[in-house]
């Protein structure tokens, strides 16, 4: 046996669950002086997935970064998932990642081979995405961290923000929920191998296929579901669009096992923060079991895309997605703003 370092044991939070709460972040950034630039199509004020800057009439630059402590013990898989997750924000804007920089923190006790494997995972994902890792920055620190700073491109007319949903749209989600709860349970060694393999494969899968299909449809709005959970990111889409998102809870694809673990109390802190963040913005139209609500607030690492498109196009898009990816689903619809931004039904 080689020296085995359990990567997740070196981390205090798992994956996107390490994310600072959305409310906290907004408070901290209040009141800073920033420059105005008409070419900045999407900036911080929009709470979107990435910033978008107009270069010329045919090209807009998308920039984003994402990194987190180990969510899995296998270093290659960790690197792959972190890179896939970082590039996802570019796909969520409707673009394609092109250039990336490594962001790496190596913890004490990590063998060189493990660090190399993390990077190999990142390069593997970038290669598949058609992006080039051109450099980066590596430091030593208390906890391992890996991720990418990514630049991508999109035609300015095709930028998909999280604030363009329109009444009458249907909502499609491209990956099932429950990752945060399952990875928390995995830390307690309570998740069986086949289930772990299933969620690892899901986290390691690029949103590229979903994006490539989505851009052939008149999509109004898109985001990716990560640390702020389906309802957190959905809330931002609703708020940004000035609409209400109705979530048909029974249609939302979830990993069945996450329900059991949620009801056992293996709910990550991020889920509680997300619930706090959107509190008041969510209305329950019927009684929804607490465990199921926990999953809707569960922080996802490398989650799927959530996008809004006209009802007449949704079925066709869904069928095309079903041919190429595992569990896409229509999870709700958009109306004019009602008394809450999110309505669970």
């Amino acid at each position, binding site marked *: 046996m080689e020296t085995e370092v359990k990567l997740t044991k070196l981390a205090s939070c798992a994956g996107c669950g390490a994310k600072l709460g959305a409310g906290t972040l907004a408070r901290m950034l209040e009141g800073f002086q920033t420059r105005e630039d008409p070419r900045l199509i999407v900036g911080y004020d929009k709470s979107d997935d990435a910033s978008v800057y107009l270069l010329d009439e045919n090209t807009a630059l998308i920039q984003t970064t994402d990194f987190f402590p180990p969510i899995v013990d296998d270093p290659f898989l960790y690197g792959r998932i972190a890179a896939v997750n970082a590039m996802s924000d570019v796909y969520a804007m409707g673009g394609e990642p092109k250039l990336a920089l490594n962001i790496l923190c190596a913890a004490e006790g990590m063998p060189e081979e493990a660090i190399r494997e993390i990077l190999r995972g990142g390069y593997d994902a970038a290669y598949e995405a058609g992006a080039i890792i051109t450099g980066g920055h590596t430091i030593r620190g208390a906890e391992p961290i890996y991720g990418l700073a990514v630049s991508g491109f999109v035609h300015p007319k095709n930028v998909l923000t999280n604030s363009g949903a329109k009444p009458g749209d249907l909502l499609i989600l491209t990956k099932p929920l429950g990752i945060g709860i399952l990875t928390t349970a995995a830390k307690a060694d309570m998740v069986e191998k086949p289930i772990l393999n299933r969620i690892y494969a899901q986290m390691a899968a690029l949103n590229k296929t979903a994006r490539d299909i989505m851009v052939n449809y008149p999509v109004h709005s898109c985001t990716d579901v990560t640390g702020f959970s389906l309802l957190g990111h959905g809330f931002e889409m609703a708020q940004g669009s000035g609409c209400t998102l109705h979530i048909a809870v029974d249609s939302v*694809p979830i990993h069945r096992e996450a329900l059991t673990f949620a009801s056992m109390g293996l*709910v990550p802190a991020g889920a509680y923060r997300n619930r706090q963040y959107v509190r008041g913005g969510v209305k329950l139209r019927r009684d929804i079991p607490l465990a199921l609500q926990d999953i809707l607030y569960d922080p996802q690492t490398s989650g799927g895309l959530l996008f809004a498109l006209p009802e007449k196009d949704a079925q066709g898009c869904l069928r095309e997605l079903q041919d190429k990816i595992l569990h896409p689903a229509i999870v709700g619809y958009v109306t004019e703003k009602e008394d809450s931004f999110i309505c669970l039904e």
Partner: protein
Amino acid sequence: MEKIVDARGMACPLPVVNAKKAAESLSPGDTLIVRVDNEIAVQNLQRFAGHMGFSAAGEKQGETEYTVTMHIGGTEKPRQEPETACAVDARKKGMLVVLSANTMGTGEEKLGKALMKAFVFALTKQDVLPETILCYNTGAYLTCQGADTLEDLKLLESEGVTVLTCGTCLDFYGLKETLAVGGITNMYDIVERMEAAVTIVRP
């Protein structure tokens, strides 16, 4: 009996894991007190107690001092999970695997059987599983007692894959009493499933 678990300073999910371990060593009527240092751990412990059917009360005793007191309940089963949700697993909708013989490929029977065993084993290792496995003609042997493919097919079934064997074939080979995994099907169902399939995989 009263047991105290000090889970202060423990990161999620350890307070729940330790509470679970302690609860397993206690009997109905006993009390379990878990000390934790944050509100989230309190809420997770309350979920755990609800799941186990224990009554529980959380109490804040200081800025980073909380206790959750649980009364270990009787023999009632843990609460069932909601069934209504749209649960997913590793199955690919519309993917059908057809096992039309107990051998794979043409050639020596011994090799063919070994290949078929390896094929079914490899199926269990895929990230994506078929929705249905159909067995007919000598493929019926694969789902019956004594088959070396049985354990793998049972594993696939436990992952939600529908395993079906042709009833006529079971009768013809005198296997009906020995069917050991999945259900029995007929020609109409076989035709319908093949027509509805998006992908048919046939070794």
